[in-house]
């Protein structure tokens, strides 16, 4: 089987004024056929190659940003007849991903993870002594997680107090997902803190946070069963769409977030809101899973590169 | 002095009473108490290890949480919590389980007048159901004073609003025991008031008249309470 591999040589677009979708473009052709014959057949008619400058760009002008106002739910076209999405991506195309390890110097492990315009930082502290004695667990490590959003992360400046319901819920989701992959029994009576900070939110923050947390945990050298990677997919205009951005996410359609342990080939996280027929759900979930695998490959490469650097620095 | 009441009751007539206990499975003790359309559910948890906040090495602590039917707890609920707490503290034997906390949760199911008395009665049954040591039972009743001076018992919400003033009174249930009667100056114990809360202006004489009538009506309530407690916990009792 062919590897789905992000184009690592490609340097990301410096200016978001000319934001384009380009990652995975060609490679995803294979995925598609494998995934969904019907979709592939539909797609066969389409032109190959990229068509730039299509669709409004939500990031271009903050003052007049369509980002703040929710697009109306009534029949909006999220996929053009040519089969392109609002930001110019194809339905099965992921946004560009980029990761960097070791961005917070004082943390035990840290990473930045970007999916298109979504950008999150994760920092891991621990394993260390449990701060609150009453929470100590005698036979395994205590994993804690806090998710917070920067005031400037959304289009409209948000002024939510810390610890609102959404943040608490996402904190819990991330904690449970990460707890499942950390070998907590190796570190009894200790505590591991995972802090994720969203710098820019453009849909899929949940997935981005989990990916960033995985990298940060790996950077901190915390023993894990496997890395966890996550990706979301949705279903709009009767088309399954991979890696929804904010506008697609707020369209109100179904949104499936999947987290997998790629090596063990197990699902650790599966969330969906809104309803979806079972057969379509399988398609969408399958698409998200493939996205996860693509992310996993990229993360593995980043980690490998990081290890090589470490080796080099040590003079090995 | 004949009074027309909307539901055709006489002045001293109470609404139909209903009481069932052990209605919740997770709680240590629970009860529901209906007075006409006013319905209150009470649950008791405890005695459990004392929370640090209200630790007392000599006495048990009682904590009341009042859940209104809708909305959030405001000042009114805080006041009710305080009155209930003080009332229940005075009927429980606190020295048996020192350094413990007993929580009583009151959930208002429906309010159709005389809410606080109804809640006190429900809490009382729930405490018995949980087996919390008590000195005696308490029965609570609401008396309304009209502008023309007559007094009615156990008003509905509509009557409560129409009347000039009303008083919530809590009387102790008479103790049938071998112990010497705990009374002073020759007055029987059930004439003493545990709690009294009034609202609106009334003359002092009106108040004493309320006391007298309330005390008489409380005897009926008291009987019902005793009867329903003697019954098997699961079957509910009804009275007219």
């Amino acid at each position: 089987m062919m590897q789905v591999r992000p184009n690592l040589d490609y340097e990301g677009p410096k200016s978001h004024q000319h934001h384009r979708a380009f990652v995975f473009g060609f490679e995803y052709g294979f995925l598609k056929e494998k995934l969904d014959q019907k979709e592939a057949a539909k797609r066969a008619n389409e032109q190959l190659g990229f068509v730039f400058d299509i669709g409004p760009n939500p990031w271009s002008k903050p003052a007049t940003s369509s980002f703040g106002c929710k697009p109306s739910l009534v029949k909006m076209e999220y996929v053009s007849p040519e089969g392109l999405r609002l930001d110019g991506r194809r339905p099965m195309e992921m946004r560009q991903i980029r990761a960097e390890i070791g961005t917070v110097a004082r943390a035990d492990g840290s990473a930045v993870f970007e999916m298109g315009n979504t950008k999150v930082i994760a920092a891991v502290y621990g394993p260390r002594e449990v701060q609150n004695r009453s929470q100590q667990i005698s036979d395994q490590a205590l994993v804690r997680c806090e998710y917070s959003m920067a005031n400037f992360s959304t289009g409209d400046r948000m002024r939510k107090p810390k610890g609102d319901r959404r943040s608490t819920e996402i904190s819990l989701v991330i904690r449970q997902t990460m707890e499942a992959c950390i070998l907590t029994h190796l570190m009894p009576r200790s505590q591991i803190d995972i802090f994720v900070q969203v710098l820019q939110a453009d849909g899929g923050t949940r997935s981005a946070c989990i990916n960033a947390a995985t990298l940060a945990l790996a950077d901190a050298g915390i023993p894990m069963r496997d890395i966890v990677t996550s990706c979301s997919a949705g279903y709009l205009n009767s088309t399954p769409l991979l890696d929804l951005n904010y506008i697609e996410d707020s369209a109100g359609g179904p949104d499936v977030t999947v987290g997998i342990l790629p090596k063990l080939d197990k699902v650790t996280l599966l969330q969906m809101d809104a309803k979806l027929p079972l057969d379509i759900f399988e398609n969408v979930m399958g698409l998200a899973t493939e996205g996860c695998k693509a992310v996993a490959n990229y993360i593995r490469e980043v980690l490998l590169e990081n290890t090589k650097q470490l080796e080099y620095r040590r003079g090995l | 002095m004949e009074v027309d009441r909307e539901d055709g009751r006489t002045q001293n007539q109470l609404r139909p009473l209903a009481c069932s206990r052990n209605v919740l499975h997770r709680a240590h003790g629970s009860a529901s108490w209906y007075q006409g359309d006013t319905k209150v559910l009470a649950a008791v948890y405890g005695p459990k290890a004392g929370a640090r906040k209200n630790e007392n090495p000599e006495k048990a602590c009682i904590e009341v949480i009042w859940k209104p039917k809708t909305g959030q707890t405001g000042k009114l609920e805080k006041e009710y919590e305080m009155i209930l707490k003080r009332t229940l503290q005075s009927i429980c034997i606190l020295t048996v389980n020192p350094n413990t906390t007993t929580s009583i949760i009151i959930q208002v199911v429906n309010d159709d007048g005389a809410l606080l008395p109804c809640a006190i009665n429900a809490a009382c049954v729930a405490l018995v159901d949980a087996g919390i040591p008590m000195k005696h039972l308490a029965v609570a009743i609401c008396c309304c004073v009209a502008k023309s001076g007559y007094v009615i018992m156990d008003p509905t919400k509509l009557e409560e609003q129409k009347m000039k003033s009303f008083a919530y009174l809590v009387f102790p249930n008479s103790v049938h025991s071998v112990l010497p009667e705990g009374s002073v100056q020759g007055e029987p114990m059930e004439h003493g008031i545990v709690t009294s809360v009034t609202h609106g202006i009334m003359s002092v004489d009106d108040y004493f008249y309320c006391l007298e009538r309330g005390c008489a009506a409380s005897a009926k309530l008291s009987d019902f309470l005793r009867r329903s407690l003697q019954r098997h916990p699961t079957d509910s009792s009804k009275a007219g």
Partner: protein
Amino acid sequence: MAAKPGSAPTTYSPSLTQKTRPPIFKGNDLDWVRPDGRGFHQCRPAFFRTGAVNSASGSAYAEFGNTKVIVSVFGPRESKKAMMYSDIGRLNCNVSYTTFATPVRGQGSDHKEFSSMLHKALEGAIMLETFPKTTVDVFALVLESGGSDLPVVISCASLALADAGIMMYDLVAAVSVSCLGKNLVIDPILEEESYQDGSLMLTCMPSRYEVTQLIFTGEWSTPDINEAMQLCLDACGKLGKVMRSCLKEATSASQE
């Protein structure tokens, strides 16, 4: 019954018909008068009294013109926050306003900024090592705000600490100066503060001649800073004397 709970109608406080009040001074006009007729370098008469709150370990009341402040000190007592062992004591400060303190009805909430400033102004003067593992709480309530609130709170708090018998190196006196146009006015009132171009607040221990806290806003040149600081230091010295005599009176009164 009469009050309808839950329905809080929006209210406003009626304003004067004249749109804007004339500013208290004009541009570069050098001979304007302060609204209360004081000289530029003249402070308001200060009134202090200790022992205003019986249930506190120590307390003081201060009145500077319309600025009225009560400070209570509790402790040293057990730390409420489960803190780690510490061989020095903890100082906990809180400043709040009454709802009617300001001309427009406020929320009466805590003033976090002032709380932390009060903490910083006092911590250098208190011998924290004399009450290890425990906390001293300093709570201030501004009954009426008439300008220079923070300096009054700080001076009053140090008197309350003295009244509570907390060991200190010295009293802390605080004075602020406002810069209006080219003039420096000491101990500004609320109206002057709302027009100020810059301000300086200095808290010091008068007998030790040490500055515990210093805050500037606005644009200052070095000679201006020298002048303003000297002004404040002199005023703090005088204020220190008033505070000292208040304490002496209180002790002599209790001995009688």
